[in-house]
């Protein structure tokens, strides 16, 4: 009998689908605990200065207003910076809400009004008079072009750029040469769900904190250190997150403020930020990049220089890997990478989907297109000629890399061989048609994670780990892994996540959840399986007597010998005759340092794009996108495809419409709402498709997965930019490609 319990690699629908489509899924601001009071944040209108006085009296006089929290009355809290540092904080001193009279950035939270109702808190916040003393601010990275510095190694995952050979010498040998600057503005994550928290204040003083976060443990750690609470006093829960994209990697200020209010008022508190306030914290930094490269007679890259400069705040040194990818995506002997940051009076930038790579690959991949044209080569052929067989940054082989196969598959499906080389060669009515290609590379990471599994006598398995579900499919893939490992139907498995009462998992980011939590779930279910095997072997006449764990498999609700499927016991019989009400196991997984030392582990992709550009009006329509991804094993074809489809939409957004624009006179983002900060709507999205190439990777982790939350975004904006060039002959080097850039 073939297996009905092989789930991994199939395309089951999301297990949490019914909860999400019926509105039953509870997001953080939706836990209606009794006797709630409501907070509303007051944001600074100035970018820099001091708060002279908060006139709270007239607000406090309104019946139903409970308190106005500000630096004037916040109780003494943790003193040292390290108490405010979260797991993914960059170097420096984290921003402390309501800490003192200093205003460090526009829209800084300067007070919290708490009232009996949301409407009253909102009103009271609107009439709170605050006196400020403004001082001169600096917010423009363009004015800091010559004032950047190389950052320290403050942040986890940051790697200082490597250099090899002598790029100037390499470039001097080149026959063809290009050097250009590429720019994109700030972007904000803008998940659909507003940042918010419901803090349930229990009669015994304990808190259950429902917070919008990508890491419940990260938030618990922060809250306990800042407020001096024990872990038992501060349980943090997030069962569903309405989108994160990195915005929830660090504890946001709604967490601090709502916990503060709950502890001070001894009441349960709800606090939601407004959409406008969603522009008041981390963002993808405004970045200036220069790429220079040159080729020899056969189109080989002889030298490459890539430099980047972006903003950080005055108080923290945010870093992301912008330029490193340029040292490993293509083969090149002489490479010089340079990365700098400059401090401004803005909030600290924050990892936003494929941080660094989304933007670094934009510059590199548009430059590659420019180079291909300068060298007279088809842009895909140019990439093939400079294919990196190994990671030259680290001088290591790749654990697997099927990018060439992705090129082949993508070119065939897209019909790339029919592409005329010359720009402006194809016209349909008013529309110029162009095709572009670009791609990228992203880390296949893994973090330590733990899990627990419990099976009950009725054959129901519950597996848990405090991972997050922000739309990536965590509930579903963990259910698949657990069910398959113990040979159960998916319906028999419940996966629990997002709660600090569960085993610890890393923050949901870096595309590492599938590898990290998935490996922990697998390992835990195997540990449980070993216990089950022992119990099975105690059965009278057990056909499994003497079998080692490696000799058996769990399939179709049975434990059976791999070599002889007829030698089997029914799992439920084992459980029911064992006399145990439930059997439990826990385990964890972590990356293998030996493998990491030996291999470079990365996912790759290539994106093919067709655009239609209205020649007279400059409007760009992305009529076709094909994203071919080599990211190891795909656990769920359906949810993985959706992640990459979403990445394509993000890439279209980044290329054509997304930008938070600051008025430097005020040091303030001006289009801070969802009407003027544009992301695509349904009518913007046409024919987009995803292909995963087969990529077996025996080294990367026990599951062979590399993660697909971020790699899909790489190259999309560059491919669109390159397609626009192919359509129009105009090279745009500053995103977004608004229509006026093509008039």
């Amino acid at each position: 009998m073939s297996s009905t319990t092989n789930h991994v690699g199939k395309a089951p629908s999301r297990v949490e689908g019914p909860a999400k489509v019926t509105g039953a899924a509870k997001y953080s601001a939706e836990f209606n605990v009794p006797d709630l009071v409501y907070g509303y944040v007051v944001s600074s209108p100035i970018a820099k200065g001091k708060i002279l006085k908060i006139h709270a009296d007239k607000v406090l006089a309104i019946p139903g207003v409970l308190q106005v929290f500000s630096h004037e009355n916040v109780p003494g809290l943790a003193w040292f910076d390290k108490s405010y540092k979260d797991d993914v904080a960059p170097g420096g001193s984290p921003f402390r809400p309501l800490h003192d009279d200093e205003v460090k950035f526009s829209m800084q939270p300067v007070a919290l009004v708490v009232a009996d109702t949301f409407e009253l808190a909102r009103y009271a916040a609107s009439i709170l008079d605050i006196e400020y003393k403004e001082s001169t601010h600096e917010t423009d990275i363009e004015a800091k072009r010559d004032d950047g510095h190389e950052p320290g190694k403050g942040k986890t995952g940051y790697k200082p750029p490597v250099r090899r050979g002598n790029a100037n010498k390499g470039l001097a040998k080149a026959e063809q040469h290009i050097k250009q600057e590429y720019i994109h503005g700030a972007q904000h994550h803008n998940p659909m769900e507003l940042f918010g928290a419901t803090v349930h204040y229990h009669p015994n003083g304990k808190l259950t904190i429902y917070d919008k976060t990508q890491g419940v443990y990260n938030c618990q750690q922060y809250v306990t250190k800042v407020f001096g609470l024990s872990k038992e006093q501060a349980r943090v829960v997030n069962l569903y997150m309405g989108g994160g994209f990195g915005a929830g990697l660090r504890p946001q200020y709604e967490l601090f403020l709502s916990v503060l209010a709950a502890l001070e008022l001894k009441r349960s508190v709800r606090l939601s930020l407004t959409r406008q306030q969603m522009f008041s914290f981390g963002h993808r930094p405004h970045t200036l990049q220069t790429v220079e490269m040159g080729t020899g007679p056969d189109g080989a890259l002889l030298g490459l220089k890539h430099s980047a400069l972006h903003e950080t705040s005055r108080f923290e040194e945010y870093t992301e890997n912008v330029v490193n990818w340029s040292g490993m995506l293509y083969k090149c002997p002489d490479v010089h990478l340079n990365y700098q940051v400059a401090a401004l009076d803005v909030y600290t930038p924050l990892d936003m989907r494929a941080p660094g790579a989304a933007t670094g690959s934009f510059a590199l991949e548009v430059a590659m297109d420019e180079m291909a044209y300068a060298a007279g080569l088809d842009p895909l052929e140019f990439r093939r000629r400079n294919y990196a067989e190994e990671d030259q940054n680290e001088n290591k082989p790749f654990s697997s890399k099927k990018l060439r196969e992705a090129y082949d598959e993508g070119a065939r499906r897209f019909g790339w061989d029919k592409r005329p080389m010359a720009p402006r060669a194809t016209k349909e009515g008013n529309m110029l048609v162009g095709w572009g290609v670009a791609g990228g590379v992203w880390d296949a990471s893994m973090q330590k994670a733990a899990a627990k599994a419990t099976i009950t006598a009725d054959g129901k398995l519950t597996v848990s780990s405090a991972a997050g579900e922000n739309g990536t499919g965590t509930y579903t893939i963990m259910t698949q892994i657990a069910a398959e490992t113990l040979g159960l139907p998916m319906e028999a498995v419940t996966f629990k996540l997002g709660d600090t009462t569960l085993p610890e998992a890393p923050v949901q980011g870096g595309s590492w959840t599938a590898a990290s939590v998935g490996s922990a779930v697998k390992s835990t279910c195997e540990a449980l399986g070993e216990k089950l095997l022992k119990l099975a072997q105690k059965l009278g006449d057990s056909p499994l007597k003497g079998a080692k764990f490696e000799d058996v498999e769990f399939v179709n609700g049975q434990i059976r010998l791999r070599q002889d499927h007829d030698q089997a016991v029914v799992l439920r019989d084992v459980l029911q005759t064992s006399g145990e009400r439930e059997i439990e196991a826990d385990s964890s997984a972590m990356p293998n340092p030996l493998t990491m030392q030996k291999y470079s582990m990365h996912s790759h992709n290539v994106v093919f794009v067709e655009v239609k550009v209205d020649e007279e009006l400059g409007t760009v329509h992305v009529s076709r996108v094909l994203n071919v991804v080599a990211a190891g094993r795909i656990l769920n074809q359906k949810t993985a495809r959706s992640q990459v489809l979403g990445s394509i939409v993000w890439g279209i957004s980044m290329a054509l419409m997304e930008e938070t624009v600051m008025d430097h006179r005020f040091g303030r983002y001006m289009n801070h709402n969802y009407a003027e900060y544009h992301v695509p709507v349904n009518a913007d999205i046409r024919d987009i498709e995803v292909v995963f190439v087969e990529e077996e990777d025996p080294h990367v982790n026990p599951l062979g997965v590399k993660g697909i939350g971020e790699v899909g975004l790489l190259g999309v904006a560059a491919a669109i930019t390159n397609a626009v060039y192919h359509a129009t002959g105009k090279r745009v080097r500053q995103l977004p490609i608004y229509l006026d850039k093509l008039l």
Partner: protein
Amino acid sequence: MNPFTLTRAESVDAAVRDFSGHDSSAYIGGGTNLLDLMKENVARPTHLVGLNKLPLTSIETTAEGGLRLGATATNADTAWHPDVQARYPLLSQAILAGASPQLRNMATNGGNLMQRTRCYYFYDLATPCNKREPGSGCSAIGGYNRIHAILGASEQCIATHPSDMCVALAALEAVVHVRGNGGERRIKFEDFHRLPGDAPEQDNTLKAGELIVALELPKKGFEKNFSYLKLRDRTSYAFALVSVAAALELDGTTIRDARLALGGVAHKPWRSPAAEDLLKGQPATEATFRKAAEASVEGAVGQGANDFKIELARRAIVRALKQAAAGGKATNVFNNSNP
């Protein structure tokens, strides 16, 4: 949002009376812009007069052969109304180019005229704005003004009117019927909205307490040759950078009558009689359209980030006129420019 009282008026007279019986009143129809502004503390009425029970939802033919659109009929009901679709497809296309289906289901015809500008600074209490706080200054001048005016602006204000529907109403020469304490009066559409001048806080020429009760469309609907072309930063659900309402009456290939109105470029829907005169009596050719386009943007001034609008407007006018000349089939009901 500050506290307010609310009554739901059962008749126009009661609404007008109720309005003037309070200190700081506002009428609320669909509420789609007013509540938005109240949540931002840009609008702070202390009394709202609810209009959604008023018997002003009908759409009916007038004795003169035109069409009377009730002020509280929704934008959606108006756009999809068979008479509007058949006789005033330009209006239908313009309404459907605006907002979203949900907002069009809420927004009323009268309310559409009362929309306030989308200027970033107008909406943000942290920045000076003469329209919001007269005398405080205009931050858009010298600031981020991608969406701002190129025509008819003043040193006090460079805001634009955000409506699509109004651009078509301007082209169709609608008449606005209003009721106040002094009875009913009619306002020509071109006189309804005003240029900012030195009183940018005033968007229109309504007197305090006057209520829009109907919009009247004249008989001529330009139903054969029309186009509402809207250019924006995404395909749908975004305000116009530039929009064009073009309507032609053709005699063979000769233009007998023409209307041209622009959106997104001025404090009010922008009509240029000179441009229309350059079209009338001329052959419907690209050369003619270019002359009209040039005349339409005569005197246009860019503010930096919106300089492109001048050239974009020229090109959009030519395209819209071409679409109009080609007949209604040149565009679909949405004309959202997606190929």
